[in-house]
């Protein structure tokens, strides 16, 4: 007996009815269809677009009342290569505060890139702070923005039959009707821990607007797929390490990056102070040692203060 259940004739008829309604709309209202197409939308996702704006507000509100985030990630990262000792040597408490203040100013600049001098300074300082290499450009690849606004995205389907109920957190964010631009998260059909983590901490980046995207799509897509990145919210002293899991947002949305519900809420990206303003850099992690998750930069600050007090 087949393990696949046969669809009932009634549901098949409904599917055809819906397909007809959809086709008729696109054929008879070309301008509206074009309007949607230009924005990468259809009527179904149009409904969700409005909903995601509500979601961003909801999540922003939730941030203000949320419990402190799990600090284990910061500990893990601080523990990389005995980094605590390295931290004390490389960054003082005063420097940490100075960097955070500078970043808070930098993210208020128009979306784009810093000048190369400031960028190099920031790459070095953030790398020293978090304990792993971060960079605006990696292997000759650079996004169109490293500073910009990060919008709230919905959950992504990790496999074809995935549903919102199977995602353990922030179900109020909803789930996108289609899979992400880089495909299913499962590996050989299996929902591994890594696949779960990748969907939890994913970024949407505007690969589709890269000047070389159309010519080098075949090379670029696999490079960007699950590429590790870090988003820094200097206003709240929070950061998130995640992977590139989707393409977007559309240019007209006025945002340059998207973040999964976990990233948006736990890294307080839409707090009253941050309002989506982040720095987004690549993580240079060829050996895949840096874990995905939230980094509490305030905790790093506290540890530096303790280390200074003890010395």
């Amino acid at each position, binding site marked *: 007996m087949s393990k696949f259940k046969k669809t009932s004739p009634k549901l098949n008829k*409904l599917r055809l009815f*819906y397909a007809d309604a*959809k086709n008729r709309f696109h054929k008879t209202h070309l301008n*509206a269809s074009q*309007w*949607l197409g230009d924005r990468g939308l259809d*009527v179904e996702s149009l409904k969700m677009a*409005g*909903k995601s704006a509500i979601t961003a507000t909801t999540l922003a509100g939730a941030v203000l009342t949320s419990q402190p985030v799990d600090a284990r990630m910061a500990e893990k990262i601080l523990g990389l290569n005995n980094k605590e000792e390295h931290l004390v040597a490389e960054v003082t408490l005063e420097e940490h505060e100075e960097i955070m203040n500078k970043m808070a100013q930098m993210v208020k600049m128009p979306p784009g890139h810093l000048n190369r001098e400031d960028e190099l300074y920031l790459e070095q300082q953030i790398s020293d702070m978090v304990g792993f290499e971060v960079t605006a450009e990696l292997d000759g690849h650079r996004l169109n923005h490293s500073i910009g606004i990060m919008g709230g995205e919905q959950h992504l389907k990790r496999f074809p039959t995935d549903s919102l109920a199977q995602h353990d957190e922030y179900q109020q964010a909803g789930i996108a009707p289609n899979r992400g631009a880089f495909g299913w998260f499962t590996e050989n059909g299996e929902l591994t821990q890594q696949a779960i983590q990748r969907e939890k901490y994913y970024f949407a980046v505007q690969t589709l607007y890269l000047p070389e995207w159309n010519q080098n799509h075949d090379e670029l897509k696999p490079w960007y797929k699950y590429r590790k990145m870090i988003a820094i919210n200097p206003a709240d002293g929070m950061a998130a390490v995640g992977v590139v899991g989707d393409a977007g947002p559309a240019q007209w949305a006025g945002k340059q990056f998207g973040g999964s519900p976990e990233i948006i809420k736990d890294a307080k990206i839409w707090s009253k102070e941050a309002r989506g303003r982040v720095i987004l850099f690549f993580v240079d992690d060829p050996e895949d040692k840096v874990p995905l998750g939230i980094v509490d930069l305030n905790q790093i600050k506290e540890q530096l203060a303790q280390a200074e007090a003890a010395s």
Partner: protein
Amino acid sequence: MRNFYYAPLVRWERVEEIIMLVPEDEREEAERLVISSIDHVVIETVLIHLDKQHHKEFMQKIHDAYHDPSVLDWLKDKISDVEEKLKNAISQTKTSIIQLLS
């Protein structure tokens, strides 16, 4: 899920009746298909009756606030008897689906 701008014009109990016509384990998809069909019909009906110069504004409005009843208020100013027109279109759609499934 059903706080769409046109929601007050729908007799939702009729939608429930349609959904109950399919097997239980397919009702989630059936609900999505029925509502999506109505979504398309409503937009079509609006675009047929709305002056062309307001089409983009309408699309932008439903993009920004598909769930906001103020979209319907805006339409009332632009299309005469819009509620009646939309009710008829929605009702015809539901009747067509019921006939199809019966």
